[in-house]
């Protein structure tokens, strides 16, 4: 589903943010991307949804080489990738329902069909009763669930989450992670960037560790969790 071949990312005058990244994520897989701050986790995610361009190397997403993708083709690639951020990025003056249907507006889904899809998605994330609320009236966990609903409402094949629980307390963190696990079980490929070791230990998923822009380990869930405990 996602493949990196000798990928480099550098900004002029600075040391490379990513060096010689080789990575393969299978369809339907759940992968944690971990490492200290500045290790390159966010940049790696940004390369996948074309918010940044690789300096060198090839990146395949769904079999398509996106390392040299045309600017005009980027929106169509993004329609297949849901993205969740730590800072939510919700529109405060729109209701929960409008925030989620925002994705469908872009795709030109008729209003009635969009409303049905949005309601189903809000039910999935447990927020159907908050459809008419405004984001600032919701808790952090609820806001993050709205973001997840927005990212999933058009059935993307990939979900990228950058520190999705970074702003949440432990109880809400579990709530969100359980939701992401559910989404993965439904068949969506999920890549979560986090530096929270407790998550890695609890969920025991494949873990790719980055340090100073390089992959230093790529372990299955059990092995990674064991190392976390030790």
């Amino acid at each position, binding site marked *: 589903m996602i493949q990196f071949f000798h990928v480099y990312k550098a900004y002029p005058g600075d040391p490379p943010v990513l060096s010689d990244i080789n990575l393969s994520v299978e369809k339907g897989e759940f992968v944690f991307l971990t490492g200290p701050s500045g290790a390159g986790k966010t940049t790696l995610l940004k390369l996948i*949804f074309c918010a940044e361009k690789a300096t060198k190397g090839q990146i395949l997403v769904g079999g398509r080489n996106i390392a040299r993708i045309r600017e*005009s083709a980027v*929106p*169509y*690639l*993004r*329609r297949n990738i849901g*993205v969740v951020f730590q800072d939510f*990025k919700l*529109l405060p003056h729109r209701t929960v329902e409008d925030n989620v249907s*925002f*994705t469908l*507006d*872009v*795709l*030109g*889904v*008729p*209003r009635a069909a969009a409303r049905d899809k949005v309601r189903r998605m809000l039910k999935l994330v447990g927020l159907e009763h908050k459809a008419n609320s405004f984001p600032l009236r919701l808790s952090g966990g609820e806001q993050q669930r709205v973001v997840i609903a*927005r990212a999933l409402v*058009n059935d993307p094949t990939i979900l990228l989450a950058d520190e999705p629980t970074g702003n949440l307390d432990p109880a809400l963190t579990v709530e969100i992670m359980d939701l992401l696990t559910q989404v993965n079980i439904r068949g969506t490929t999920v890549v979560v960037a986090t530096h929270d070791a407790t998550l890695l230990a609890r969920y025991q998923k494949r873990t790719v560790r980055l340090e100073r822009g390089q992959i230093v380990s790529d372990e299955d869930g059990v092995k990674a969790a064991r190392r976390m405990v030790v």
Partner: protein
Amino acid sequence: MSALAKTRYFWRSAAVGLKHSPFVHFIAVTTIAIALFSAGLARGSARVLDNLLASLGGEVEVTVYLAPELGQDEAHGVRARVEELSKGQVTLVPPDAALERLRTELGDLGEALAELPENPLPAALELRVPPEQRTPEALQVLAKELRALPGVSGVDYGEQAVERLTAIARALRFGSLVAFVVVLGATVVIVAATLQLAIYSRREEIEIQKLVGATDRFVKAPFLLEGLLQGLLGAGVALLGLWAFGRLVGPTLGSLFAFLLGPGVAAPWVEPRLVMELVGAGCGLGLGGSFVAVGRFLRV
């Protein structure tokens, strides 16, 4: 289905945009309205000027002087030729009739003409020009053609006055055109600047749109529509202003200058053609401004 949903979304989004930053859009609409109101006034003034020139052309009497050596038959021949060229009504005034007319016009002083040894006045043709030729340019062309006719010694139609007026009208038109272009340019810049503020206030929304797969065109369309709506509103306000101007000031102007300008000055200031022109110009200004704004701001 998808296109219809998108179109609906664009209009809804544009309307929300107008509602979202009312002050910014108020400035843009006012700017467009002022520019179009000025343009409408300039158009109205130009029409008054045209009426003046046309009426002046209608009143000008073209007199074609015939060569003194011309006989009666030859004079009739020239008359026929002039009639053919001008498509107007031509009256032959023989020298005796011309002298008699002068004597009548001079009144008591006219008796002095009896002392003249011989009649100094040449035979002349008085030409009543048809309406389509009553413009300074057409009169100039006609006079040139008449002067070239054999047997014609001169043509008079108040040439200098008409030429001076034409030059003034041309200078006024050119000046107003330059001013209009400058005002249009300034309006586009102001509209673009205000729309940039509106776009900036919605940058978060744009960022999310791009994130969920919106194309550049999709992001830009509502802002272009906002510009279009601004233009339409501006044109509406300008037309309302011109209509009010025509109602309040038009009659006063008409009564003040009717002796000079004729009935044209009292003509309505808002005509169907002007409505179309101003609405078109308003849409152009709004779209132009928003095009500049989105082009500069949405390079994402």
